[in-house]
């Protein structure tokens, strides 16, 4: 569970606006569902935060609630003036985190 995937260009022009697409496999358990066999409520467990940093500075972030679908998909835009590393971090309510990195070269 919870494998992040990122799609972003390898090379961009300085100041060019480009799209970053992200997906992480995660059930996003709402805490409202019941187990069909036992009838017990399945405990809530969601990703409540997603942060995108470029060269250490926050570019974009999401505070997500249970209404975000399973396998959260976030696509956003950004621009860069010099090459650097895009670092994406997903955090589960339990405190568990996942991250992905992608080098972007500014031509």
């Amino acid at each position, binding site marked *: 569970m919870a494998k992040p995937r990122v799609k972003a260009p390898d090379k961009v022009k300085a100041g060019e*606006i480009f799209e970053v*697409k992200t997906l992480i496999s995660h059930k996003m358990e*709402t805490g*409202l*569902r*019941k187990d069909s066999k036992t009838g017990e409520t*399945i405990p809530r467990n969601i990703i409540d935060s997603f942060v995108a940093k*470029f060269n250490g*500075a*926050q*570019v*974009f*972030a*999401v*505070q*997500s*609630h*249970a*209404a*975000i*679908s*399973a396998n*959260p*998909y*976030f*696509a*956003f*835009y*950004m*621009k*860069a003036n010099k090459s650097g590393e895009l670092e994406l971090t997903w955090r589960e309510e339990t405190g568990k985190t996942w991250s992905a990195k992608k080098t972007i070269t500014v031509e």
Partner: protein
Amino acid sequence: MTAKVELMRVGRRDFVRGATAVAAMAAIISLPGGPAHAERNLQEAMKSVTGDAKPMEGKVSLTLPEIAENGNTVPFSFTVESPMSDTDYVKAVHIFASGNPRPDVASFMFSPASGKAAANSRMRLAKTQDVIAIAQMSDGKLYMAKRTVKVTIGGCGG
């Protein structure tokens, strides 16, 4: 004889109609998460973002399907008109679903390095309802947009 039958029929229909109305009213009164309750939740959730300010119409364009067959994954996107400069940019966009058990969907945070205040994601919708986007600008101004989505199969587990 004929008259009597006619009377009886009317009497039975009236009884059925009356009983249905009573049952419907009872259902509305007894529902803990009835419409009034959900509406209050939405107002509270929106107030946590807007404070006492009233959002203006415009600048925000919110895209959602008119009919969502599966409420478990409803794609949505938005874009906010803004120069996205260091002094004039969109700080955040908050999304609310008026008819979900909890109206909060997500808050998207932007910076001047975003270049464009736009994003794409997918949400759960429990039933047919309005989805609301409120954009918070760097100068504190608020703008909002609203879309109605018809949901065929609700998605919130259960």
